[in-house]
């Protein structure tokens, strides 16, 4: 079982979270042409190794997290809030 250290709630089972998607995607602006959106939505690397992904602490604090996880070993290298301001909240809590 993957265990994710939520910066707000602590280390929890992955069943509390829901997987989001590729965290390395830079979403184009809403005005951007269709080609940019097609690339952002449908084209994905199939990474063997560490990838950045988003997880939602659905049954916890509901924070969206950016997680670096190895697709080979499931080892989690880092976890941080997706929203930069939330990092401050988390640091204040500690």
């Amino acid at each position, binding site marked *: *079982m*993957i265990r994710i250290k939520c910066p707000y709630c602590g280390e929890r*089972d992955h069943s509390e979270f829901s997987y989001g998607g590729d965290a390395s995607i830079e979403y184009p602006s809403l005005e951007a042409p269709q080609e940019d959106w097609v690339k952002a939505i449908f084209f994905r690397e199939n990474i063997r190794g560490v990838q950045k992904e988003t997880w939602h602490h659905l049954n916890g604090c509901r924070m*969206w997290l950016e997680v670096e996880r190895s697709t080979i070993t499931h080892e989690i290298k880092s976890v941080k809030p997706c929203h930069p301001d939330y990092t401050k909240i988390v640091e204040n809590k500690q």
Partner: protein
Amino acid sequence: MSSQRIDNFGKINRDKELRFKWENKNYFGYDGDSLASAMLANNIKIVGRSFKYHRPRGIMSCGVEESGGLVTIGVGDKKDPNVRVTSQELFEGLVASGQNAFPNVNFDLGSVNNYLSRFFAAGFYYKTFMGIPPFEWGRGTSIWMFFEKFIRNAAGMGKNSRLPDPDVYEHANDFCDILIVGSGPAGIAAAKEAVDKKLDVILVEQDNLIGGDQLSDNDFDTDTAFKELQNLGVRVMKRTTAFGLYDNCVLGLIERVTDYNTSIDKELPRQRFWIVRAKHIIVGSGAFERHIAFNNNDVPGSMTVNASKHYLNRYGVLTGKEIVIATNNDSVYLTAEILANAGAKVTVLDKREKIDLKFNRNNFEVRNGVVPYKINGSREIKSLDIADSVNSKYKKIDTIQCDQVLMSGGWSPAVHLLSHRGVRPEWDSENLCFLPGEAKENITMVGSARGIWGKEDCIKSGTAGALDALNRLGISKTNYFFPKEGGWKNAIEPLYEVKFNKSRSKSFVDFQHDVTCDDVRLAHREGFISVEHLKRYTTLGMANDQGKMGNIIGLSLMADLLEKEIPEVGTTTFRPPFTPVAIGALAGRSVGKHFMPLRTTPMHQWNLDHGATMIEAGLYQRPWYFPKTNETISEAYIREATTVRKSVGICDVTSLGKIAIQGPDSTEFINRIYTNPFAKLPINKTRYGIMLRDDGLVLDDGTCWRLSDTEYFMTTSTAQAGRVMSWLEELLQVRWTDLKVNVTSVSEQWAVAAISGPKTREVLNQCLEDPSVISNENLPFMGFTSSELIGGIPCRIARISFSGELGYEIYILADYANKMMDILWNAAKKFNGCLYGLEALGALRVEKGHVTGAELDGRTTIDDVGLGKMASNKKSYIGSAMRKRGVLSSEDREKLVGFFPANKKDTFDAGTIICEKNNIKGYGIGRVTSVTHSPELGHWIGLGFIKGGMERWQNTTVVGSDLVRNKEMEIRVVSPHMVDPDGKRMYA
């Protein structure tokens, strides 16, 4: 075989007799017996029939690797098939019966298969696809399906009761620093060392007693060992199997809470499924003794050597009178001596020509350079033919009278748990076994699971294992070393199969699945040479013992055939569970009405009290219809929908998702997520909106209300409420981090009633403190206001209509839900109003052509459902770039239409496929998604999709093909807006 209980041996409590039933006969054993030892004490020889050939089988081991003694325990709904007699504790009143046999295990008609064995060789199941072997008679699917019935009937050992499981199971969670699997010498040593360093230690033991292999030592005191560990602070979990090892040192455990004693506390669950999260795992899971493949090696009375020692020293059962021990290693000699001391006549056949060991030669006979060749006897062992080996050709030299043959072909460390983590074991050509590979995670193997045979060395390895854990956890830095693997004085020699030199033989590799050496050779001949193919083709190692005893013999045979070494052939990967786990334990308490969480609205009881029949809508219980006496569902919903159109009706719509959106950038946010413009929505106005996904398809629809410059209130569909909430959070936290907006789910805080029909305003006038707030002037269509119900109960009223009639939705704090319903209902009754449920709601919205989840199914665009007008061209929003991409703007898209039966008397159902006349085939050109009887029109109507939509098909007749109900009907394509298309009533 002639097994019996003897005095002066064993640790059972002979003062406490326990009665049990086997195959309808009464027997007794003692407190402390396993079912296996009690059966052996009663000299029960045949305990089961083999899988394919129905050969008689006896007890072959003393542990979880058992492949002969599989029985059914219990009767009726308590029936539990495929229980290993070796792991089942005896309890008072235990009822056991044989399986895979008719009429019983002693006389089994299925044993005729023994003579038809050429039909049942490896791959027999797959070959039935090609016709009945060996003639391939009757190829094709139908003959296979015919044959399959018989295969299925013959397959599988025990049968389930097919009754609901009466037992209760529960889930439990725990944490610890170090979890140790196995309470053998190594596990106990590791526990003591770790707890000495003040760590939180759990020690898991599948047996009911701790000690592991020491339980077969005559001088080991399990109670003292248990108390010592407890006093030290080790948390010992007995009767608990570590069945799976997962990421991050998470272990799945099954604790058998009442399996061994059905009479204790009825409040306790049968089993407990534990998930334990440890920081480090130490595995001292022991090793399995292997058997030897030779002709008829499965006759009742054949057993592993160590099992016999176990039965003697733990249970006081001597398993034979004239015992032959066949070996290739040193581990058997202590057992030989003990068995001889207990009164058995013992002969050891050692494959090795010469060994150097000290033992009392007067006690038993040793014959070197000799191997077992063939067991004579079918229901019990009568004698054993033995052979010598010259250049690996075996030649019979003698026959020994005996009633038991014990086998030891070497030992295999139980590397299963490590294998669960994907760590491949490594072949040790000196000790002839697979040793655990190096784990990168925090897992340490100790004891004989590490390939260390001697007890003293096992203890040292346990201590070293604990120090290894401490070092890896960064708690201490101590030097340690593990003893070398092995530990026998004389080298083991390979002995996997004693090949029979006549054509037909039954040398079993895998007892439980009846896989013989010849089957392995057949698989090789037919090209199934990879280990994974060999496994699946022969089913070697696929029975519920998972090849704990036989796998390596199979590998060695394949290695021989391929002229390779065993490690080049490989080993199969073990997967969880280590031993079978009851599905009930995995389900835990999530059964029956607890299968899913149940959501009810705050007026749930009110609805029930007023006669509602409920229906599940997602997790919600919602009123389906409110039948009057003797009314059917159709009669009820038609009456309800008619009442709404003619007068007034009230419906609980609380299950809608509700989200509060607050912050200075709320308007910008809202404007980006809906397709239609929201920037200019005035305060106190609500707007129906559509949200798309990134890929341009419709996500959800709902309303959004502007409460102030910076605050909105959003409703979503019941089905998508959770998803929309997560989506908004994602947008704000991941994508648009510059927007200052906060979203909060308030779904549970508000209760909502929809009230609709021409009399609605008159009804509401009686319910409000200030009725003027809802006049047409003060509250026009799509307006909302904050007001008070009579009695001063604050509420929000929105003029929204899903039914197409004059309609309002009343939002109230959840605690006042019942009060609101009372107020509304008392007033509505005066106008001959009704309460209506989901079915009437559906009828009303289908008449109006309003879409719901049946149409917004994640495959449709906003244009497909005819709401293209709501997609703004003046702004960009989520999905705007993508909604017209490629196929999504094709002329051939299926578009929303209404359907009438051509013959007004016809009915149709959702799921009906729409085809062109005279061209009824394939996927058709459309589909029906929602249907209802229309009270307004007096016949059935439907919504659905058709290629090209209204432009192409309006007023033409097509054919509806319902493959489920096997009917066809002519259908006319009409506008989806079937009642009051101009919406005059809503604006009234």
